């Protein structure tokens, strides 16, 4: 009986965690590796949702397919963002770039409002309402499964990229010591721009899936920023694999918190687990100091 009633929250928590990880992964990369606090991460994610929305409206594509178009667009958005703005303040401390990203955040929110109006939007598809029913006590929404597997897929690819490819290693080297990285033949401005572009590609995928799972508005980005921060901090900055575990922990904490202590404890239990993790492992699960 206990098992039966626990099955659903457990599965939901884990799958929700996948989505959380996906939201946080791009953040983990810029935050953990490039030491950049990107306060616009959530808004850029929602920008992708809107892009996808625009495409579905005009081309009538299935929202899931818009990923093919949205990710490259977001790559260029990220590339340009880094190249035109953030690269200009390399080595000038962590606070100035933070303010720039904050500027971008409010510009994005208000531009989205101006373009798309304050109306609620959603990327509707028949996926959203389907579930793979397993038993009476357990049913798994298809969209959750898609979210989770997309997260795993992105994490695998990104991990491979950062750990095993030259550009990936170059990104990490550049953030460790920019001047010495130049001496290795790394064009650090370019490599940073590429890194931001890639981070935005993951945000694009997250944005499309978030848009298919939840409604969104021009101002929804902030709440995803918090989730992203939580995931990054639990997982350990820059630990790409850590984000998945962190996402799942956060998802489980919330869903199980709601299950055992009542719904009012949902966010709170997530936060408390987060803080507890931080106090016990101040450098995150997979981080090192």
């Amino acid at each position, binding site marked *: 009986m206990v098992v039966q009633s626990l099955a659903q929250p457990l599965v939901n928590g884990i799958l929700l965690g996948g989505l959380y990880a996906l939201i946080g992964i791009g953040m983990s990369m810029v935050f953990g590796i490039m030491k950049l606090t990107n306060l616009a991460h959530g808004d850029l994610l929602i920008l992708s949702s809107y892009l996808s929305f625009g495409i579905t409206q005009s081309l009538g594509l299935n929202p899931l397919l818009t990923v093919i178009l949205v990710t490259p667009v977001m790559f260029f958005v990220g590339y340009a963002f880094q190249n035109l*703005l953030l690269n200009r303040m390399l080595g*000038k401390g962590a606070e100035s770039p933070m303010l*720039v990203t904050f500027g971008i955040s*409010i510009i994005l929110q208000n*531009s989205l409002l*101006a373009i798309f109006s304050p109306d609620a939007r959603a990327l509707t598809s028949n996926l959203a309402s389907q579930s793979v029913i397993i038993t009476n006590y357990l049913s798994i929404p298809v969209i959750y499964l898609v979210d989770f597997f997309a997260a795993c897929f992105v994490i695998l690819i990104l991990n491979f990229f950062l750990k095993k490819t030259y550009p990936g290693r170059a990104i990490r080297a550049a953030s460790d010591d920019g001047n010495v990285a130049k001496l290795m033949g790394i064009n650090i401005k370019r490599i940073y721009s590429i890194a931001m572009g890639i981070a935005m590609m993951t945000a694009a995928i997250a944005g499309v899936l978030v848009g298919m799972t939840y409604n969104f508005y021009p101002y929804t980005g902030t709440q995803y920023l918090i989730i992203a921060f939580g995931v990054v901090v639990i997982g350990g900055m820059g630990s790409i694999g850590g984000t998945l575990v962190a996402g799942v922990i956060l998802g489980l904490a919330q869903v199980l918190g709601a299950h055992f202590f009542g719904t009012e404890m949902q966010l709170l239990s997530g936060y408390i687990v987060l803080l507890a993790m931080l*106090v016990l492992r101040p450098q995150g699960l997979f981080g090192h100091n």
Partner: protein
Amino acid sequence: MLKRLTSNRSIKYSALGLLVLVLLTVPLWGTQYLVMLFLLISLYVAFAQMWNLLAGYAGLISLGQQIFIGLGGYTLAVLTEYYGLTIWQSILMGGLISGVVAAFLAFLLFRMKGVYFTIASWITAEIMVVVFSNWAYVRQGMGIFIRSAYKLSTNDIYYAALALGISSVILVQIILRSKLGLGLMAMRDNEGAAETMGVEIFKSKLYCFIISAVVTGFTGGVLYLSQAFIQPTAAFSISWTVAVIFIVIIGGIGTVVGPIVGAVIYVLLQQFLSQYVGIGMLILGVMAITVILIAPKGIMGTLQQKLRFEIFSSRRI
């Protein structure tokens, strides 16, 4: 050489004295609106000085200072509404409670370093939102009207704010010139080396955190005097700290004058932009980026670098 220095100094002090005099007499010659502007500026100066003390000097970049704004405001609301304490008693208590809470939080938060501290401080503030939204004693999400503030005149609040603003500047200056300040700056640059040179890391951070919490708590109290209505999402909103980050970074982080310049710009800009409905915030964002692109170290930071001159210097010679 020495003579020039001293005359320079006396010019500086008379200028500062004159400035204080002007500020003190604003209600006599200015409109009520001008008084309100100076009120807001003074409060943001106090708040920004405290954030700057943490971030610019102690290297503690906090995204959770709204905790103390909220606590200051809520203490004011609860004590005046429920217990009939006077406004000034309540504000004093708000500062003290903020200090106590800060001391407690320090044991949690100081285990974390760098950005981990930053995020944890924000998460703590979000926890405050959830707690206050569920806490029947403070009327949950409904919020509390601070009715005793209805009767207060803008001038009264202005003097409280001004006192807070000026004393925050003096306080920061005193701290920076003290043993504590030197330790903080050393710690910001290299914690390990500072520690092996005798700087008590935890204690220094703790004092700094508590001081800034107390003053921010006072600021919260006075801010909510002019607001007269408090509810959890706004009181513990990240937007307080975002505003203060804007102020300190635009003005120049790690300088004493920077937060003052930043506060003036921020308040005037906010007021000016409120007439451009819908695009006001957009312009604010563009402004933030432009200023930082032109002056990456903030206005005062960049000016000081160019002119090699500091109005309030914490340099030892």
